[in-house]
């Protein structure tokens, strides 16, 4: 009996040594919920067990950084924001996925924005969720015959989801009927959300954050105009929007109190959520407008992407690649999407099955095709500090009236310049 028990223990230990599950990690969020639905199918198909550790978004990066720095992290496949991979790759914490044999089976040409996932020609992250910064609008209001007639009478052209910045201003003004309806919902709280409003306009007006030598150039004329335009739009927003974050802005829109919300595509899931939205089936999405003279040009547009990377310390990188191949395969992306994901692949976005679940997905795919998907922060380790730590406070100072647009941007440029010097860029 004793011998049998010992034998059982030895077998158990041996098996546990060999059958180490693939460790995934992620934030707590709806697109993670979507790909989690694929875990069981993956194990059935490949025999590879998978486990997941989830962290709240607010401290997920801290957990990863501290874990990797101390060498105590046991994660094979971290699901991360595209903004994080430069810092993780510079520290060799994550591995170039394109170096894993068999990577060529992943069809990169089908994934918009994939160029952002590459560093020195190597791919470090395979996007799973892609979205754009744009405008969510109330289709019912835009299609209302009375509204259409009134709009054309006042502005002399057809009411439509704004394609140009000029139209965007007019439409916001037209629908601004406080306190029951506001023209647009914006996110004025000092945070990266506020910075998005500035960045979108900066890009639309042909400006940029950094030049090719990594020197800050956003205090240009385009930058000043962009900042002033942000302030201008706030007059068509609820005064409370000056302290809104993403969730509060969405809440206002889904409660039917604004005609448009300048957020990003994920907002559409909230619009269609019957448990909390009063505008289910009434939402549409359009990419961020541009100046009239740049209509038809492919311009940078705020792009948010999450995807899978592979830890350098992962003992079985082939198993990690198996997971990537499986979960980012078109049909799996389509099937997982209704749980709360916007697939990264064009083939998934254009699938008829998905168009049925998400009538707005076609507009999103069209916007994606017409723009240069550009991450909100420069893809360098200092990118987050530049946008969250320097640009967001600068925009906030201008909106608060404590600095002029020029002064706010000049001060911010000085700070970025110091940061870049400290980082050894020049």
């Amino acid at each position, binding site marked *: 009996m004793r011998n049998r028990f010992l034998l059982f223990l030895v077998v158990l230990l041996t098996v546990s040594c060999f059958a180490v599950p693939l460790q995934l990690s992620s934030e707590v969020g709806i697109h993670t919920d979507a790909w989690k639905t694929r875990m069981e199918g993956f194990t059935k198909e490949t025999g590879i067990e998978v486990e997941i550790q989830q962290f709240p978004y607010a401290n997920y990066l*801290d957990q990863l*950084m*501290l874990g990797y*720095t101390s060498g105590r992290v046991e994660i094979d496949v971290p699901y991360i924001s595209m903004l994080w991979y430069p*810092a993780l790759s*510079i*520290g*060799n914490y994550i591995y170039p996925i394109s170096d894993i044999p068999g990577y060529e089976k992943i069809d990169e040409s089908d994934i918009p924005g994939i160029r952002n996932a590459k560093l020195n020609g190597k791919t470090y992250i395979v996007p799973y969720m892609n979205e754009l910064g744009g405008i969510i609008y109330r289709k019912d209001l835009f299609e209302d015959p009375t509204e259409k007639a009134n709009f054309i009478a006042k502005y002399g052209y057809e009411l439509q989801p704004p394609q140009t910045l000029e139209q965007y201003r007019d439409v916001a003004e037209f629908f601004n009927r406080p*306190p029951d309806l506001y023209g647009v919902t914006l996110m*004025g*709280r*000092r*945070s990266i959300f506020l910075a998005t409003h500035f960045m979108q306009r900066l890009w639309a007006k042909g400006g940029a954050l950094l030049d090719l030598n990594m020197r800050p150039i956003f205090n240009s004329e385009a930058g000043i105009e962009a900042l002033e335009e942000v302030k201008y739009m706030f007059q068509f927003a*609820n*005064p*409370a929007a*000056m*302290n809104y974050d993403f969730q509060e802005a969405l809440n206002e829109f889904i409660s039917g109190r604004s005609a448009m919300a300048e957020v990003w595509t994920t907002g559409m899931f909230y619009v269609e959520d019957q448990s909390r939205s009063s505008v289910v089936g009434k939402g549409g999405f359009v990419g961020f407008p541009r100046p009239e003279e740049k209509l038809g040009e492919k311009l940078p547009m705020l792009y948010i992407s999450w995807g899978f990377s592979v830890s350098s310390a992962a003992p079985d990188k082939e198993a990690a690649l198996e997971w990537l191949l499986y979960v980012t395969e078109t049909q799996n992306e389509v099937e997982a999407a209704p749980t709360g994901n916007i697939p990264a692949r064009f083939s998934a976005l254009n699938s008829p099955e998905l168009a049925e679940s998400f009538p707005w997905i076609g507009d999103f795919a069209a916007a994606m095709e017409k723009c240069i998907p550009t991450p909100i922060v420069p893809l360098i*380790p*200092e990118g*987050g*500090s530049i946008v*969250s*730590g320097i640009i967001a*406070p600068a925009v*906030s*100072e*201008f*909106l*608060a*009236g*404590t*600095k002029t647009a020029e002064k706010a941007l000049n001060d911010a440029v000085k700070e970025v310049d110091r*940061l870049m010097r*400290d*980082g*050894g860029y020049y």
Partner: protein
Amino acid sequence: MVGDQMKSRRRSRGYWYILPSMVFIVIIFMIPLTYTIVMSFLRWNLLRPDLGIRAAGFSNYVRLFTDPFTLDTVGRTFYFVLGAVLIELIAGLCIALALDTEFKGWKIVQSVLLVPFMIAPVVVGYVWRFVLNSDYGPIIHILRQLGLGGLVEKPLLSNPSAAMPVLIVADAWEYIPFVTLVLLAGLKSIPYEPYEAAFVDGASSLQRFHYITLPLLRPSILVAVVIRTLTSLRVFDIVFIMTGGGPGTATETLAFYGYRTAFQAYNVGFSSAINMLTFAIAVFFTILYMKIIGGGKNYA
């Protein structure tokens, strides 16, 4: 001779008794403090492991003391600390004096009074954000009903001149019960005899308060003020939740600046220098209070 030996043995036994607390203090206080001091002399960015950890000499401190932003942040922190502690002390003292008598249901009043103090600061932040919401917040609604809507035309938390006072009020709301409790305990410990003598001498209630209550309450005031100053200096939760440091930089305190440097820029060296500055200010305030309120006596 034998007496000396016994004394020395007793003394050495005393050291053994305090050893566990000493070990505790070294582990939870001295080691992290030493580590922070060391890090403040390093150039270490967690996002740039390729640059390694380099000696920075005094450069983090030079930057800290030459950057006008730091001075502004120190100013804002002082504003917050002095505002919050002053309100809490005055209101806490008034409430403690009012409660320093036994009336029917005073225990219920005391329990109710403690409620804000029992709430986590994060929740306090959200509650105040809700209360001040310019759409549906009750305070704004009441002000509008009173015809004072003009005061809040611009939402308070987005107004650079109003945001910090609002944070001070929110903080005071949470901590007045704590100060009240400490001062009430102090009032209860004051003997009755001096008051009796004062009655006999015909002292007015104001004189009794000035010459008896206040001097005998000094140790409790010192404890309350020191504790509240130290905790206010590291205020983070309500700033993070209510304003995120904005509008502009209107509510960015030292602790928030330290957080931003450590967890947005991952600049470990510079954020350690910021923390050392906060520590130095805390020590300065403690000594100052001991001199002013404690009259140089070491009540601690």
